[in-house]
């Protein structure tokens, strides 16, 4: 029998301090990029450093970022939802339809959120119960949800939303701070806490790193994934409310292509597209970076198509840099 009270080796909790870890993090690099872009912009255009202009600029990212928070969790868990922009279209169409029959703002908000939840549940059932790959399922529902909008709307547009419905997309809570920015800030905190401070968030990381291992550790893998699809649908519904309110109308082409911008934001924020790692602060900074780049280029009268080239280059550049750096260092060591 072995002596159980023998002096065992002491293993420290951590080797590096909190400050060291933060300095070396992806978020720190991204923050530096954000500051650099901010300074470049303020030199390049005299109109940049204006509170009201900057306030307008936040619309470039607030709606996308609402979805990006939920999407970040979904991608960390190893899944993805490419139907989010189409959920916006369907939710917006449903709200427009209801508005035609005289629905009030409260009812419209309810409809937007419920449609989003239902779409998320639809995706979730196929992925978690039938075990299909989420990328295939949501490419399918991307066409399906927007297709329904096209059938209902054709080349028409819904207008005639109640006047107070405009508050979500056009209102201000204080001075230059918009309602959307406030929602963004609240959600950033909510999702940050959910991912980094709760058991649920820990399960998301575990699943993303090793779904089989997580299952074998007693995690209810499919349940967690289903909840993440619900959340992503719900956030798409919320984004639909804000966007519809801001535009004041619904066309079936609303938010076309937004799913890729959302995924770009998540990946730029340092979330591993293969799952397992990433953080909400990263996504928040990435949202600001994308917003600043789009706004700055807009001030310089760069057309939208060129802008997407810049966003693409930014994404590839920011992701490739650390990798290139590591390769260079390894090469030096090897020689």
């Amino acid at each position, binding site marked *: *029998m*072995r002596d*159980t009270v023998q002096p*065992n*080796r*002491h*293993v*420290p*909790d*951590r*080797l590096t301090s909190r400050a060291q870890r933060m300095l070396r993090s992806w978020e720190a690099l991204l923050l530096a990029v954000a500051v650099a872009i901010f300074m470049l912009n303020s030199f390049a255009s005299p109109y940049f450093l204006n509170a009201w202009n900057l306030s307008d600029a936040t619309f470039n990212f607030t709606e996308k970022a609402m979805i990006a928070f939920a999407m970040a969790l979904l991608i960390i868990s190893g899944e993805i939802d490419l139907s989010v922009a189409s959920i916006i279209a369907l939710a917006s169409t449903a709200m427009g339809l209801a508005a035609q029959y005289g629905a009030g703002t409260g009812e419209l908000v309810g409809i937007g959120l419920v449609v989003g939840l239902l779409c998320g549940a639809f995706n979730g059932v196929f992925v978690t119960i039938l075990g299909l790959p989420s990328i295939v399922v949501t490419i399918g529902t991307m066409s399906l949800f927007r297709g329904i909008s096209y059938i209902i709307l054709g080349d028409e547009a819904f207008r005639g939303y109640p006047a107070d419905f405009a508050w979500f997309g056009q209102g201000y809570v204080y001075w230059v701070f918009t309602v959307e920015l406030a929602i963004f800030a609240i959600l950033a905190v909510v999702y940050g806490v959910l991912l980094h*401070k*709760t*058991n*649920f*968030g*820990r399960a998301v*990381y*575990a699943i*993303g*790193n*090793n779904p*089989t*291992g*997580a*299952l*074998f*550790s*007693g*995690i*209810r893998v499919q349940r967690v994934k289903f909840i993440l699809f619900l959340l992503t649908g719900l956030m798409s519904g919320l984004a639909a409310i804000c966007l519809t309110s801001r535009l004041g109308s619904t066309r079936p082409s609303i938010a076309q292509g937004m799913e890729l911008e959302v995924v770009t934001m998540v990946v730029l924020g340092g979330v591993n597209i293969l799952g*397992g*790692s990433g953080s909400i602060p990263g996504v928040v900074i990435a949202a600001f970076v994308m917003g600043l780049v789009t706004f700055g280029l807009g001030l310089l009268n760069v057309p939208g198509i060129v802008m997407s080239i810049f966003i693409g280059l930014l994404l590839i550049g920011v992701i490739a840099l650390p990798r290139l750096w590591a390769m260079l260092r390894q090469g030096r060591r090897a020689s």
Partner: protein
Amino acid sequence: MTKPALPVVSMDAITKTFPGVKALDAVRLDLYPGQVTALVGENGAGKSTTVKILTGIYRPDGGTIRIDGTPVTIDSANAAADAGITAIHQETVLFDELSVAENIFIGHAPRTRTGLIDKTQMHRAAEKLLREIDAPIDPRTRLRDLGIANKHLVAIARALSVDARVVIMDEPTAALSHKEITELYELIETLKSQGKAILFISHKFDEIFRIADRYTVFRDGAFVGEGRIADIDEDALVKMMVGRTVDHIFPDRGSTIAEDVLQVAGYSHPTEFADIGFTLRRGEILGFYGLVGAGRSEFMQALFGITKPSKGVCKISGKIRVIRSPADAVANGIVYVPEDRGRQGAIIGLPIFQNITLPSLGRTSRAGFLRLAEEFALARTYAERLDLRAAALDQDVGNLSGGNQQKIVIAKWLATQPQVIILDEPTKGIDIGSKAAVHAFMAELAEQGLSIIMVSSEIPEVIGMSDRAIIMRDGRIVAELEGDALRPETLVRHAAGITASPQLEEA
């Protein structure tokens, strides 16, 4: 053709060392034309290593391989093919989406003058090969449309397509039905009559005595003996196989066995296992022995809520519990340390402390919110109890050695304070020193009242550690042994299905 004058292949004094383990220690093996040689030995005796050396996957550290008396170097799969050696593996590597003919000729398909694959020629050649082994398969069929037995025939045809003189069959019957096995025997007879030398690896004694002409026995990586099957009987062969001196001392355990903790009855699965029933007492170590494929791991994973669909009754401390998922099992005090440590064990990418606390978050957290201080405290308790070798608790488990990752998985489960811990091959692939530590720790846990189920394929471990042992074969419990009945010969007899055994205690 039937007179074995000279061996085709002759391995002499072959040695192979892996870090910490001597897998083969100066073994010899001769294969004669037109004869089936059975290579017999326990798990870990060195059979697979031998196959890998013959097929060019491993290079021996010492010794000579002779083909027709000439020393050769087999340093690649191609060199093995050139020497006329081909193998049909336990899990054959075939391509589901390709046709039968493409599978047979992949890598060496006949070409047209322009360098493209000559399909007509390939199909004709494939047809001829399949006819030679009496396989009624259309070479144009896609492989995925075939059953497991026909896939096996394709694998054999592929092995023969390279003009083989030596055919290695590693557990060829593991996945086959009785009828298919009979057909395989006929095929082996055909190959024998063509003068091919066959190396036949099987744990099943009835097969060995049915089909083999010669035998060679390895034990713990060493050569024990060889001869003609006609000159030996089952008992003598079993003795050669297991008759070793126990090379490490198992912890001495007093039997303080108390009340039943776990009662299992009528657990069944459509294909993997049937009618499993047993009881487990507090502080007991219950061994589960059987051959690979006997359904032990599948049953354990069913008990843990993973293998579905399975049905059966599970009572914990006398109360019926329904276990539909690992989460249910953990909640009911049953935990499982898997054999597949890489995929099912530690979660690489998460730090050590998060791995350990993952199933215990309900206790370390408050209202669903993490409390890191509690997590570190819990992780530290169990990391130190298991003498974990790590730089810090926030280190990624991926940077730890296999043995330390195994400690993390065990620590993770002990932290949930379970009633029953299932250890699936707890010492597989770890060195002698660590083995002794694991065994001592298991004894200590049992002493403290934890009930342990130990799935093991190592006979000394089963005998040295178990209070009782259950033996499974073909998905069923065939015997339950304890005390003096727990002997190597008895275990092997039951597991291999050797009839007319002296003691048969039905479960």
